[in-house]
């Protein structure tokens, strides 16, 4: 299967008088992890909804490979390979973990008549194979038979991620995938995302946890007030004067939440210390 890139061109979204997203262009290339950061209200979530199709832009285009998918519904986009996960895990609580994954694995075919007549669906074996493979690679085989509604949050995130993988994505959009995970889980998760990207999937990571984003991504977009103010390699964006001033005005760059210290980092003492400077390996 040929992998596709996701590209956004001049996206605009207005709510009444407020322009939430203003002429944003963005590339999410295959095999790379692209990050999207920005303070609250910067337009990250709106941009994310425009990419997934939950909302329609007032201007601009979304392209998947060569194809214009701007007006496509979220499920049509997903069948073409653009798959998202949610800020709040969105499993189907009454189904087992295995069935949750199976729903995603068999999404490409829409054989309703056969289903109604009770015929065995074609391609069922291959769908099951995909589920088996994903369960094995994420070490989830143990909880395959568990009903999703009974799982703890950390497991929910992982299963949702597994479900997204079962949809065989070309592009994976992750909305705050690390919220609710502890430090160890976050580390494991970062490694996992890197592995998926190495397999040729294009990944967009939106997160408040700036440390996480800088640690794993190949390229970052920083949004402020509905515009992209900086883009490029993590080191470049980190030292961008606009980004620095925004984050310094808002508090520490790693201001994920007020209660918990950011995983993998130490809270700056007075909230005004300069950005963490250690040189991150840009990739791998």
């Amino acid at each position, binding site marked *: 299967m040929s992998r596709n890139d996701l590209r956004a061109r001049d996206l605009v979204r207005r709510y009444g008088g407020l322009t939430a997203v203003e002429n944003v262009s963005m590339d999410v290339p295959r095999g790379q992890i692209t990050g999207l950061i920005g303070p609250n209200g910067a337009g990250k979530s709106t941009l994310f909804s425009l990419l*997934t199709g*939950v909302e329609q832009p007032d201007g601009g285009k979304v392209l998947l490979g060569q194809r214009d998918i701007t007006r496509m*519904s*979220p*499920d*049509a986009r*997903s*069948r073409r390979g653009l*798959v*998202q*996960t*949610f800020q709040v895990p*969105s*499993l*189907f*609580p*009454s*189904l*087992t973990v*295995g*069935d*949750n994954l*199976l*729903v*995603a694995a*068999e*999404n*490409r075919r*829409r054989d*309703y008549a056969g*289903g*109604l*007549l*009770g015929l*065995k*669906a074609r391609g*069922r074996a291959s*769908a099951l194979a995909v589920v088996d493979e994903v369960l094995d690679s994420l070490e989830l085989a143990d909880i395959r*038979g568990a*009903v999703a509604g009974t799982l703890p949050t950390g497991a929910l995130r992982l299963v*949702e991620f597994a*479900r*997204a993988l*079962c*949809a065989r994505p070309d592009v994976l959009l992750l909305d705050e995938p690390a919220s609710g995970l502890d430090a160890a889980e976050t580390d494991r998760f970062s490694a996992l995302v890197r592995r998926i990207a190495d397999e040729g999937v294009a990944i967009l990571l939106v997160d408040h946890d700036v440390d996480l984003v800088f640690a794993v991504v190949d390229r970052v977009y920083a949004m402020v007030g509905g515009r992209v103010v900086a883009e490029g390699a993590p080191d470049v964006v980190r030292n961008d004067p606009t980004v620095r001033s925004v984050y310094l005005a808002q508090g520490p760059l790693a201001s994920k939440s007020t209660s918990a210290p950011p995983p993998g980092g130490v809270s700056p003492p007075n909230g005004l210390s300069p950005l963490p400077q250690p040189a991150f390996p840009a990739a791998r």
Partner: protein
Amino acid sequence: MTSIDLALTGISLGAIAALSGIGVLVTYRTNGVLNFAQGGIATLVAYVFREMVVEWGLPIWLAAIIALAVLSPGIGLLLERLVFRPLARRRASAAESLVASLGVLVLTLGMTAGIWGLGSRTDAPSIFPRESVTLLGDTRVGVDALAELALVVVFCVVLGLLAAKTRFGRQVRAVVDDRQLAELSGVPADKVAAAGWALGTTLAGLTGILLAPQFRLNPYGLTLLVLETFAVVVAARLASLPVAVLTALGIAIAQSELKQFTFDGDLGTIFTVLQSNLFIVALLVLLLVVPRLRELGNGDSGATGSFSSRGAPPSGPVSRYEARRDILGKLGGAALLLAPLTFAPADLRSAFMVPALALVFLSLVILTGYSGQLSLGVAGYAGLGALFTLKLANGDFFGLPEIPGIWAMFLGALMVAPIGLITGWPAIRRRGLTLALTTFAVGAVVSRFVFEQPDFASGLYVDPLTLFGAELNDKAFYFFELVCLAIGLLVVRNLHHGRLGRALLAVRDHTEGAAAVGVDVRNLKLLAFTISSVVAALGGGLITFSASSFATDDFAPLQSLLWFTAVIVFGADSAAGAIIAAGFIVAIDVLAPAGSSILAVGILALALGWMPGGLMSAVRGGIAWVARVLADEFVPSPHTDHAAASRLTGAGSAASPGGAGRAGADGAAGSAVRVVLPAGAPAPTAFGEALLTAVATHTARSGLALETLPSMRAAADASADGQNRAGHRQRLPGLPVERGV
């Protein structure tokens, strides 16, 4: 009559509709419950009012005070305290509150029908004198209209001031925002909610008393009339009082003005219907036009997952034990369904309705239980199926030739499919209350514009069914019904199993999540709507043949509400529940006076607060509970005093050498149960430590009790005081005990 005169006659109805709308809005804004029971309460109060004036001879003013100052608010307070406060306490979903209000509607309908019968009465007294006064020249206007208008203005002003200027208004807003949070900040949320209910039901009662003399008083008719005023509430988007009032007056006056025109031909017929049904048309149109209602909460009251207790059957292989139990259950069900074939002829005919009704209920299982969409218009599809079937069988369906009854039934049901598809269209983007109201409006419009029109629904005769020229006798007809039911069950099974079932449940459980992994949400919803309408239509056809006539009342809009409630009560996602519900309703209707089945469903619906998954899951849970209680019979309660506990332990150990060695050893070990933490786990906090100790103690106690049972019995036999403690055991001698019962 001139336009002005017509307008003035419209004002009265408009003012009443406005009062009703204000009542619904007040209840909704204070409690978050769209009160479908408004119609039922209005009717009940109107009947009581009439009873007091006409039968008991009370003066009108006294009767009015009793009805409006005591009875109506009393109903509201009672409902809040007994039904809706428990729901609010456990943060029930809006869908559950909706079903509870439907339950109250069904209950009040059942009470009214049970006490006063389903017949119409024309002697409902009027509060205001039936006089008119002259205004401006020779225009005359009724005193009642003026008084009603004055009432509307008073309510609007008082409520407006209350909301804007007083502490109470602020409290209401706080409670509406977040009941729990408001309570934490010291707002008496229960009082606010109770006040909202009392005011809402008082206005409902007022609506009923004012409407009754203008129309005939009959349980179904008046209730539906009040429900039609929901158009006003929808126009107000569930929020704005002034918009509601103006819409009410506007629709009523427009409806009145239409009376000065007449048209000929088919258009004229439709127009005539419009003249008396503008409210229900407005309800449908407004629902299709108004983009979004301002629903309280997250607006996700379409989440019907709370009605369902089970997920999809697991995709893996089932154990042989389960398969055998499954087959046994199916055989038992089939035997019960076949039983009427051995009944006396009259009883067999009564049983005709069971498979027919079961099919209609199955259609709701598909829609609500599996795909998670509320539908309050199922009677519309059932009625259309019946109508098409009869038209086809009679040979007057747009020039189609006469078709034998059986094939007409299947064809008629299939012809409803496109209608289900079209009416399912609005459902794609709608959920929650909007969807519930839209389906209700569709059902009501179909009923008013099709079923109640002599052009469509008269001169329909029901010939006995024939198969290959031979007339079906009663037994053969019942068997044919079972075949239809089997087809319906097969469809339901296929919709519930395999990838179709998984995808439908995925949409029901989390629509956005399903879309995110590529499940075709739109087409799945349409599919569910279409299939459900066909199944309902088949059921409708069978209902007509069962009753040997097409009766408009069988497919009245309120039937939809009753049927929906019944399906939820018996378990929305249970096909067996649907069949049992049908059997239950038919049995009660046959054995008890008319209206009893409505009453029974209403009572069960109110009990839904204690059995969230419906009756079927309550039964499933009940069996597990009985098993547990039986097991507990042999387990001393945790409150056993220390002396007794130590004595038991002693007895257990003492008896161990004498035969029950294993039990004794386990009992001794049981007293020393320790919770072992996994290697590498962090040390527990003080609270965790306490928790682990508690768990260990409990485990030790119950483990000891189970394992030392034989020796305990011996000890009880031996000691005099032990007989008291173990007294209940003597009634259950020698019952075997297993771990994990």
